[in-house]
């Protein structure tokens, strides 16, 4: 009887593995095609074979020659780093006020925050654009960073996390006469580290991939971020598929690294963000 079941399970597992292998292959094959195409010479693109007949790693250096690709990367990482830092910090402070302090009107303000999470980006994007025009922040990194540095989503996510930290700890610190600022910095923030990591990864990825806002705001080539730079590259050198694929692949490297090292945090962040208070 027991052996029977295990054989059945074994069979079922083999089926699952086969099915999952097939699905994983369909998820990954387009990306492999991208990888192999990026090494092909232009004449081989249309021949339909997956692997290149001759390998041309110099396609990658050609990308850097044709467009200021390194600059695009640097700009993207730079903007995303600032956005991540500022947004995590302001969100953590806001979350502290929502999760740790009792004040009149707290819940209504929080509901307001929560409510704006479903406002389509384009609704606020139009006035924000005119705001940038008025402040003469068009075509600047400041204009890219500041409007993204305050996320209602981050405040919400960290509040969820902070609610799970036992209050006894900061109450003890308060008894010892610690100020709220030091409770925030020395007690709550260190304990929120996993939540902060999750938010940091999500924010960084969001900012790194953001397309709409840089597209309408940036006009100088030297300030372009990667997604906009990729679009320009596609429109000018779109027929050189091999170079295009090399550039696309390189633009995926930072997120893939983040994924490899921060998978755990990332998953926590996604799940945390889905639990409505």
């Amino acid at each position, binding site marked *: 009887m027991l052996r029977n079941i295990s054989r059945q399970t074994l069979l079922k597992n083999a089926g699952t593995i086969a099915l999952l292998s097939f699905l994983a292959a369909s998820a990954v094959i387009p990306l492999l095609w991208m990888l192999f195409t990026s090494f092909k010479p232009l004449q081989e693109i249309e021949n339909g074979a997956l692997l290149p007949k001759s390998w041309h790693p110099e396609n990658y250096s050609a990308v850097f020659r044709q467009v200021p690709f390194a600059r695009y990367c640097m700009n993207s990482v730079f903007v995303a780093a600032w956005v991540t830092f500022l947004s995590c910090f302001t969100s953590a*402070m806001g979350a502290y006020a929502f999760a740790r302090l009792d004040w009149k009107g707290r819940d209504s303000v929080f509901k307001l925050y929560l409510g704006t999470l479903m406002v389509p980006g384009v609704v606020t994007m139009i*006035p924000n654009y005119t705001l940038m025009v008025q402040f003469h922040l068009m075509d600047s990194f400041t204009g890219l960073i500041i409007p993204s540095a305050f996320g209602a989503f981050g405040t919400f996510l960290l509040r969820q996390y902070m609610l799970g930290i036992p209050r006894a700890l900061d109450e003890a610190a308060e008894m010892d006469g610690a100020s709220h600022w030091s409770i925030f910095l020395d007690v709550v923030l260190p304990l929120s580290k996993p939540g902060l990591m999750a938010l940091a990864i999500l924010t960084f990825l969001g900012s790194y991939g953001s397309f709409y806002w840089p597209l309408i705001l940036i006009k100088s080539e030297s300030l372009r971020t990667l997604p906009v730079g990729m679009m320009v590259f596609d429109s000018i050198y779109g027929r050189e598929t091999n170079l295009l694929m090399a550039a696309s692949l390189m633009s995926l490297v930072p997120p893939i690294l983040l994924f490899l090292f921060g998978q755990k945090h990332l998953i926590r962040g996604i799940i945390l963000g889905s639990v409505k208070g």
Partner: protein
Amino acid sequence: MKRQRRNFRTALLFLGPSLFGFLLFTAGPLLFSLGASFTNWNLQRTIPMRFVGTANFTSLLADRRFWLFLGNTLYLMLGMPFAIFGSLWLAILLKRKIRGIGVFRSLLYIPSFASGVAILILWKTLYNPDFGPVNDGLRHLFSALHVHWDAPQWLQSTRNLAALEPEKTSINRSQFGIGARDAINFMGVWTAIGGNNMLLYLAALTNVPEELIEAAQLDGASSTRCFTSITWPHLAPTTFFILVMSIIGGLQGGFEQAKIMTSGGPAGTTTTLAYFIYSLAFEQYRIGYASAVAWVLFGFVLIATLANWRFGNRAAEYI
């Protein structure tokens, strides 16, 4: 009382930066754009700005393009149910206790993770009707099967599985086929199926009490029955959340696809409301009219969310 007031001051201090940003870049603009939607504001200032009452909204209702683009937006949401149920199915598969199954989870997660401009450019290349690998593969497959079949023109075709006519709201059988909108839908399912929704389902599945399922199995319940009467109800809150977020995302989606892959074509069939607003606001600088369209879009999101709440709460009661 004194403590309460001090707390209020501290709270304001802590909330300050976040509230500043919230008011300046979210709440303020929200009201501002509502106001702008009642004006003829044009950033080029070639026309004197004035209040025009509800003129933007009435001309919107008469604007044929608006209805076509709304239709496109809805059509591009057709992939949603497949993506959601696919995610659930994958989550159930990945839930099995097999060594090394985590690798599959990571591999399946890659497409959604890597999404963005690079992936759109990749798919644009894959979909090339003449030398793209998609049609290459199809041609090989069909010649091996000895079936004669004209390969789809993908992003260059106005055809679609609903046989909708381009530029019209009617149906014409000659339009039946696979075209740009379907191509975007397929790509969307590919991107989303192993993504965040799958992770949410995976997490939610751990909360399904296994004792219940085991007990039911001992009582002789089939696995289908176990799923419909135990697992599925327990997943209802997750499904509900995913559905709401997908609808919100879908209604305001389609911009990047249109901008990178199709420029909204062919014949406007991949222009969604989001792309329409972009072109009104940031290519023609008709801020007033664009704000009106954006608010109508917001209205749809609100209605969808509220309907979901009502429906969702009722569904939750059945558990």
